[in-house]
């Protein structure tokens, strides 16, 4: 007989209701507010699906019994738990997304102005800041379960790079993957809200108005081909654990720049990355079941995540100001804020604020330098954490 106890209603509790509302908010933000819709829509729908009890989407088998949740040591038995295991836990999806991102990235601004690499590195300070603060919380408050791996996963949110955050969290603190991924993508979408007040607080109008010639020097095809090859060799030799992310990133980039693999580059930058984004989004959302997400640690992830992001912006701007002490031709210190790797949102914020301060300014290309350097910087920071803690 098909009665109430066979439907999901009997197993539904208030936590599921809260999570359905959160899923609906993600859908609203994605669809109506157009905030990172390519991610928030699949994540939001994944949250809704997983909070409908008895659906079995994230079921796992543990010692012969079916468990209605993802079990780290168990065997995945549901549609989404299988995607999660073989896509995320096996580290395929984030690394392959980097292949697509590489095929979409133009390194010309970095090659034309290598100083911006320093800014991309400087903006990673927030990552380490949040790491130590999270460790402090974990060691001070007995109710909060945060160790080295969890702290690193929270810190990396400051880099504002979704795939890198997911990659690192999966290795060091897999139980946090829903919270860190959502925090990273939410804050990336909120770049235009978070960064301007910090930039304004650190710079005078005169500094924001510093004019930089809009054109950078032309970059040759040979330079564009050599950059991913030499870049991969140097970074991976320095930080071997960054190999999956940096390796795929640079491979995608050489497909784009070689000029002879346009078909592969087009696929990587379009259909390929789109398929992976769907799988990533829905499986991250599916990790946000009420019982695993509604924990005090999740709130800490969100709170420290935004602190990491703010501190990264802070150090990016401060480093640019510091560089100006030694530069004959001054740089606009706002481009330091673009060292967080939220491409191209950060660069766009800098461009807009630069124009507001001085209508002659057109800082987009200058800001794209630290922006793409920031992607390399965050992936390298993740590699450093893995090297030490992995």
């Amino acid at each position: 007989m098909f009665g109430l106890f066979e439907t999901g209603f009997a197993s539904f509790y208030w936590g599921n209701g809260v999570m359905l509302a959160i899923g609906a908010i993600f859908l609203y933000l994605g669809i109506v507010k157009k905030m990172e819709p390519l991610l928030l829509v699949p994540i939001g729908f994944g949250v809704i699906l997983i909070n409908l009890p008895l659906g079995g989407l994230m079921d796992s088998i543990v010692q012969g019994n079916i468990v209605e949740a993802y079990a780290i040591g168990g065997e995945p038995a549901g549609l989404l738990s299988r995607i999660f295991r073989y896509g995320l836990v096996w580290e395929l999806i984030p690394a392959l997304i980097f292949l697509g991102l590489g095929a979409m990235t133009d390194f010309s601004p970095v090659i034309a102005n290598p100083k911006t690499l320093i800014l991309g590195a400087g903006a990673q300070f927030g990552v380490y800041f949040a790491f130590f603060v999270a460790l402090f919380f974990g060691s001070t408050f007995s109710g909060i379960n945060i160790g080295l791996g969890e702290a690193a996963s929270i810190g990396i949110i400051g880099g504002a790079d979704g795939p890198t955050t997911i990659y690192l969290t999966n290795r060091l603190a897999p139980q946090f993957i829903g919270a860190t991924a959502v925090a990273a993508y939410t804050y990336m979408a909120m770049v235009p809200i978070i960064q301007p007040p910090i930039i304004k607080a650190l710079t005078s109008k005169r500094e924001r108005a510093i004019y930089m010639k809009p054109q950078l020097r032309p970059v040759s095809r040979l330079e564009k081909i050599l950059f991913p090859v030499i870049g991969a060799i140097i970074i991976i030799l320095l930080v071997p654990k960054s190999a999956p992310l940096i390796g795929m990133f640079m491979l995608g980039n050489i497909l784009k720049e070689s000029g002879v693999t346009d078909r592969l580059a087009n696929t990587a930058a379009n259909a390929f990355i789109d398929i992976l984004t769907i799988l990533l989004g829905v499986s991250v959302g599916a990790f946000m079941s009420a019982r695993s997400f509604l924990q005090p640690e999740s709130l800490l992830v969100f709170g420290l995540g935004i602190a990491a992001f703010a501190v990264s912006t802070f150090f990016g701007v401060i480093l640019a100001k510091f560089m100006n002490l030694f530069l004959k031709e001054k740089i606009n210190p706002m481009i330091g804020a673009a060292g967080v790797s939220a491409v191209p949102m950060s660069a766009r914020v800098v461009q807009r604020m630069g124009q507001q301060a001085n209508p002659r300014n057109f800082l987009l290309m200058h800001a794209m330098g630290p922006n793409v350097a920031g992607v390399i910087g965050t992936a390298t920071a993740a590699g450093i954490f893995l090297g030490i803690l992995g």
Partner: protein
Amino acid sequence: MGKEIVEVPITGKITSVNVKSGDQVQEGDVICILESMKMENPILAPVDGVVGEVSVSTGQVVKPGETIVVIDI
């Protein structure tokens, strides 16, 4: 009376031209929208003045250094 030449900053496509010859513009007014790197970038008037010659049209692909408008100040 001086002249201010507004030039194309980066390669892209003009998606709209918001001024015509004879228009009075103030510093910060949008002259046109330049689509580049998948972003819509407004090009702003650097000074107050009167638009003289408009050298671009909607749909035109432009390169750095080309003139967008001349503003008489």
